[in-house]
């Protein structure tokens, strides 16, 4: 199998993606705690906007993971 990137290059890309994914997951954790706090305080105005942002974050994370698998399998 021929690879467009060497393994060292892919490892560097993987580290970059991992950093971004970790930052997004921390953001989602903050969103979840803030939403729960608002819900318990009877403030339901932010629940669905926060859910939308969290879904976008999941989409971004999934896209990055798919890219990672794609560069493993792609031909040059």
């Amino acid at each position, binding site marked *: *199998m021929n690879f467009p990137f060497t393994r060292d290059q892919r490892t560097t890309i993987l580290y970059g993606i991992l950093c971004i994914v970790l930052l997004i997951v921390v953001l*989602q954790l903050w969103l*979840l705690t803030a939403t729960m706090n608002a819900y318990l*305080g009877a403030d339901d105005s932010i629940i669905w906007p926060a859910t939308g942002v969290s879904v976008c974050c*999941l989409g971004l994370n999934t896209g990055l*993971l798919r890219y990672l698998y794609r560069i493993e399998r792609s031909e040059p």
Partner: protein
Amino acid sequence: MSPDPEQMTLPPDGKPDSEQPAWRHDFPVDWPQDHYVARRDFTKFMVLTSFAFVVGQVWIGAKNVLRRRAGLPPVRRITEIDSVAIGTALKFNYPNKDDACLLIRTGDADWVAYSQKCTHLSCAVVPEVSRGCLNCPCHEGAFDLRTGRATSGPPRRPLPRVVLQVRRNDIYATGLEVSPS
């Protein structure tokens, strides 16, 4: 298909990379590939965590929809006025039978009632009428007796306040006021 030039360890059966079982790709022998696979799987796990957070958000949204559908809490008689002495408290359940609340008589015609669950981690708060506060013994949290606001310790949100109404010689709970921090 040519073998992977970066594969340092050859499979024991000597067959090409494409004919190897899937597990051999997930459990490589050489260190650089093992490092790569370990970090890639960690990334995959983090994406799964991201999905779990979305499930949590949707769960909060669903709980909120159910709470709205439940409507207003019922009007319920708590007790007779004379059965609670000034400076003492009475425990009752409102709006559901599992929701413990405290009715506190602070004066001749002054009443307050709050949920007994601390807004930090749901420990039962203890009224201290002489000091004008409700204390949470778990983490030394305190709430103001008059307003229910958190005054010290870890709680940020005030105690949910039970709306009271005096009818003749009885006292009734007519609603629950929950305030944000």
